[in-house]
């Protein structure tokens, strides 16, 4: 990443950002919020949730803003009828994929998926909802994972690997069967590598990983991105 500054237009506004910046960050730094569920500043971008799709003039394709770097003269559109429809579709699909029932969820009112659904005006899903019955793992002293609420954003996996540096978490299987696992798909209490650092709970955008007995609002009391960046800086010193 060089020191060069790139000039581009986002939603008609001219912005200047360092070369190599991703569109999502460039927009955010200039007060334009593009929705995302998997991206978290300080972690390697994943490009999985597809909520941050944007249009770029001159291309018929859509681009995920979290993984597309800016380039000079680029004209980005972050809001359009089509984009809104696609974002609603993504939220609907996520809601239909697992058992997301806000009223009985620990993350109610502190859930990024929920607030996104509200913002986008998703009041129903066009798909039949699939209520999964995965066993809740509450064997750990205070950390709980409820895979029925997981949206597979892999923030927890990345924070565990990149910030905590232990890589306790990963994915098993693939596609619709993919799930977050601890070590060799062990119960949490039997994990040989978990340091109980709670970072996974702090970064979870929904109520899939949480701390027992602690209000989710408290676990995520700080802006999560700040938390990660802070850790990063502390590590550097």
């Amino acid at each position, binding site marked *: 990443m060089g020191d060069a500054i790139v000039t581009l237009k986002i939603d008609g506004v001219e912005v200047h950002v360092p070369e190599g910046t991703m569109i999502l960050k460039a927009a955010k730094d200039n007060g334009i919020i593009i929705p995302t569920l998997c991206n978290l500043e300080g972690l390697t*971008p994943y490009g*999985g949730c*597809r909520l941050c799709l944007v249009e770029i003039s001159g291309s018929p394709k859509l681009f995920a803003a979290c993984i597309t*770097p800016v380039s000079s003269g680029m004209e980005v559109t972050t809001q359009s009828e089509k984009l809104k429809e*696609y974002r609603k579709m993504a939220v609907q*699909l996520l809601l239909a994929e697992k058992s997301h029932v806000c009223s009985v969820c620990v993350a109610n009112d502190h859930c990024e998926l929920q607030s996104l659904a509200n913002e986008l005006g998703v009041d129903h899903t066009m798909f039949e909802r699939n209520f999964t019955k995965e066993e809740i793992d509450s064997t750990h002293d205070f950390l709980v994972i409820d895979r029925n609420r997981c949206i597979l954003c892999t923030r927890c996996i990345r924070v565990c690997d990149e910030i905590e540096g232990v890589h306790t978490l990963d994915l098993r299987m693939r596609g*619709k069967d993919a799930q977050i696992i601890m070590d060799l798909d062990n119960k949490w209490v039997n994990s040989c590598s978990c340091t109980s650092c709670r970072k996974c709970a702090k970064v979870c955008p929904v109520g899939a990983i949480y701390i027992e007995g602690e209000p989710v609002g408290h676990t995520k009391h700080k802006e999560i991105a700040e938390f990660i960046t802070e850790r990063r800086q502390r590590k550097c010193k």
Partner: protein
Amino acid sequence: MEATSLNLADIQKIAEQEVDFERAYKYRINVCCSSGCVPLGALKVLKAFEDAVKELGVEKECKVARTGCPGTCAVGPAVMIEPGDYLYQNVTPEKAREIVRDHVVLGLPVKEMLYKNEAFYKKQQRLVLRNAGKIDPQRIQDYIAMGGYSAIVKCLATMTPQGVIYEVSTSGLRGRGGAGFPTGQKWGLVARAHSKPKYIVANLDEGDPGVFANRTLAEADPHAILEGMLIAAYAIGAEKGYLYIRSEYPLAIQTLQKAIAQARSISLLGDNILETGFKFDVELRFGAGAFVAGEETAILASVEGRRAMPRPRPPYPANSGLWGKPTLIQNVETLANIPLIIQNGGVWFSKIGTPRCTGTKCFSLTGKTKNPGLIEVPMGITLREVVFDIGGGVPEGRKFKAVLVGGPSGGCLPDTLLELPVDYDSLTRVGAIMGSGGIVVLDDKSCMVDTAKFFTEFCVDESCGRCTPCRAGLIRIKEIFDGITQGDARVEDITTLEKAGVYIRDASLCGLGQTAPNPVLTTLRYFKDEYLEHIQDKKCRAGKCFKNKEEEV
């Protein structure tokens, strides 16, 4: 063959020796021993021919060779006798002796056993498969005798890397893995990338169900792939190549392992190739049952020993591929074209096929066709020619209904599109893809709704799970299909299918997700009446659907 260090001139000498050696034989009996014919008893047939030749005392004038596939899988075991390319079909060990006696001893081909379908070969143009069924893939000398490895000799002796890339660019060759990216341009990108070392990954992860072109190529002519890799390595400056192959292809793996060992033994691979100082080696890597691993960033993850999950581009593999180094990823069929381009020149190649899509393409022709098998046709041939002339139409007097082009994420095309020329752009326009070259013919006993459901199920199973549209979307589409085929659906479901399909196509991260809705969208486009019939009348004209429920009860 003993380990020896050869130089550039020696390859020509081997070729001449081998040709002389062959000339001593009046006849050559090629017994196809590829994965297609072996289960039908080809190895016993091979043994029977060897015995018969000895018994009848013609072993001095008649050579029996174990070869790869001539493409006529429908009538295996297949045996070809040269000169004259007499192709015998459905050969049994009992018939072997009769064929040797009449054809070799008396010089009278056994007419009633010959493959009579001339149309099968007439419209084909076999470049990539030039040696398939004619040489013994286990003998490097056979390949050299056919002019093999003369292209790399030409490169090393007379051409600069830039010159090689220029020839490939001139040829107009486009990637045969499906996307059709111009090969010369790709090579140029990797060649210009600054960091080192550079790598080549040859893609033989033929995961499309219903496709076996790459397997057949590897089993019939493994050295063509290796020579293509060598030339690419010379052009882009790579020292190491990985050949990624499905583990479901044991015979192809064995053949390639042997080929690599032989090439190393005569210094066609290694630290000092043909005493020119050029260095390149190839290592095999084995897939493990993941269709998505054929995607170019996923294959990199897999070669590195990780979950084969596609990653976003940029960075492009040409700049940052294996272990962050510049990497050329190329399908093996593309690579097998390269020696011909070098031997005959890019201009020669650019005249084959159509101006925008030059050369030929291998297709696996299967389903309800009279002549299933592996074919190679010039780009731009029409679907009708493939299905009816080469394929011989639909068997058992049934009616043609649709042809599925491009594998599980291809498109189902109706008879009104049969005049469509087969090339990258025309196929994409009608909602299909070239894919890795699968053509499946469907007759009126096939239900289009059921077919679309089958392919959706395949993609559901093969989705890696990274992005929302593909992981969470395809499964919902599948559920809607379950409803339609079991009599539990509403007309509005069609709109949902369309909306979700378009969304998955536009919003997915990789090629798998982007093309997975193709069968759904094309069947909705061309066969909507069948959907309505299922939903409104609970009727399946092919008699495939509405069964499962009763049976389970």
